[in-house]
């Protein structure tokens, strides 16, 4: 069974969002998503400073099998990227909610985070798939 930490928010496209409490959030893909993709071998991250809209394809994760877009769960500005993924894309497989984070952003609407799915709703989503 996939891990779905209670303290995170989730999108229907299988991204997770952590509220950092300082006006920024961290974004990655869920354990369920990494397991479905298989071994990751390449990650393309957005540029710091880029303005993205909710639903924008802002990163790409490539597994041995295929390339998949990562859709931004929120609108805002990219404030940091996980440079370590360049040499270690497998971090997303090994630790999707920790070392495998993809980018940080400052949401233009701070209230939008709370509007995302909570863990219970996300668990229900992946069970229904």
């Amino acid at each position, binding site marked *: 069974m996939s891990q779905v930490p209670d303290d995170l928010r989730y999108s229907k496209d299988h991204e997770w969002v952590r509220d950092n409490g300082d006006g920024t959030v961290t974004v990655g893909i869920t354990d369920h998503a990494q397991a479905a993709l*298989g*071994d990751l*071998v*390449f990650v*393309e991250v957005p540029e710091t400073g880029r303005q993205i809209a909710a639903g924008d394809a802002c990163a*790409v994760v*490539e597994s*041995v*099998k*295929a*390339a998949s877009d990562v859709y931004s769960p929120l609108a805002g500005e990219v404030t940091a990227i996980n440079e370590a993924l*360049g040499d270690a894309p497998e971090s997303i497989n090994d630790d999707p909610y920790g070392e495998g984070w993809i980018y940080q952003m400052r949401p233009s609407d701070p209230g939008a985070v709370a509007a995302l799915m909570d863990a219970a709703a996300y668990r229900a989503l992946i069970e229904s798939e």
Partner: protein
Amino acid sequence: MGSQTPLFAEHLALGARIVPFAGWDMPLHYGSQLAEHLAVRAGAGMFDVSHMLPVDLAGTSVLPFLRRLLANDAARLKDPGKALYGCLLNPEGGVIDDLILYYLGPERYRAVVNAATAEKDLAWMRGQAAGAELEIRPRRDLAMIAVQGPEARAKTAPLLPAALRDRAPALAPFFAAEGGDWLVARTGYTGEDGFEVLCPGAEAPGLWRGLLAAGVSPCGLGARDTLRLEAGMNLYGQDMDESTSPLAAGLGWTIAWEPTERDFIGRAGLEAERQAGGLPDFVGLVLTGRGVLRPHQRVFADGREVGEVTSGGFAPSLDRSIALARVAPGTGPECAVEIRGKAVPARVVKPPFVRQGEPLIVLD
């Protein structure tokens, strides 16, 4: 739900991720495709390839039939047990399928064809055989396990029936030995040494478990694809199909032009194509920039489009991306591949990329 091989329950017990493939429910991987790939290069891995179809061909007309059916020449198989790789062509010279043909004994052969094309191949063979003294018998009763890697033969031999236990280790590459309904062949699709073992479906789980107990890693279709790509081996439906001739897919070496009087199906088409000239090069690519090569990406050289990737992916043994590609003659050594709208530099190389565990591609 698709068809299931006699090993389906074994795959589930091992936690395989099952995917639909050519009408079959097959294991994609058992946890990590990368680990499975590397296990084959370093030790031994096993693959359930029971979805492929063995077809037994026998009768007094079988050799003339096969010499007409295949672009490679079955008459080259003089010693019992010898195997031959070749293509089944349509009259235009397009590839209906690629297969391995085993010479079992006088007037007895076995072809092993791809799962996705099995019914098409059978219908084609039967149509071509009309009126000939010949029996064409699909062997859905047989399972097939490929055991591949430097330790594969040593780990497999003790698990074979007594009649094959001593003969199997003595097999030369591309030879097979038959014992009852078992056939063990020193062939494969990974670029490593190993065996492909055909046996009655009911006996396959016992062999599978014995191999598992001997430390052979179960490997899925995912690793099978990255291993064959590193080995520079073509995949039917991706690198060639009915609209592609073997000459445009790096398979010219499988066409037996001599003797010139052998009139195989597709010969006229191939000769016309060869005479017309300007055939594309079928090459290997190594991505020197960042990213992953995938089928159908466009290849550019000197600012113009010169072809496309036919098979591409990440090469675990090289820790970079590689591909097979069909490009304009003379392309290289430098080119670029379009990945998500960006031109990423790549180098044209001659496959294979990896053989017997050793990388053959050196980039400075």
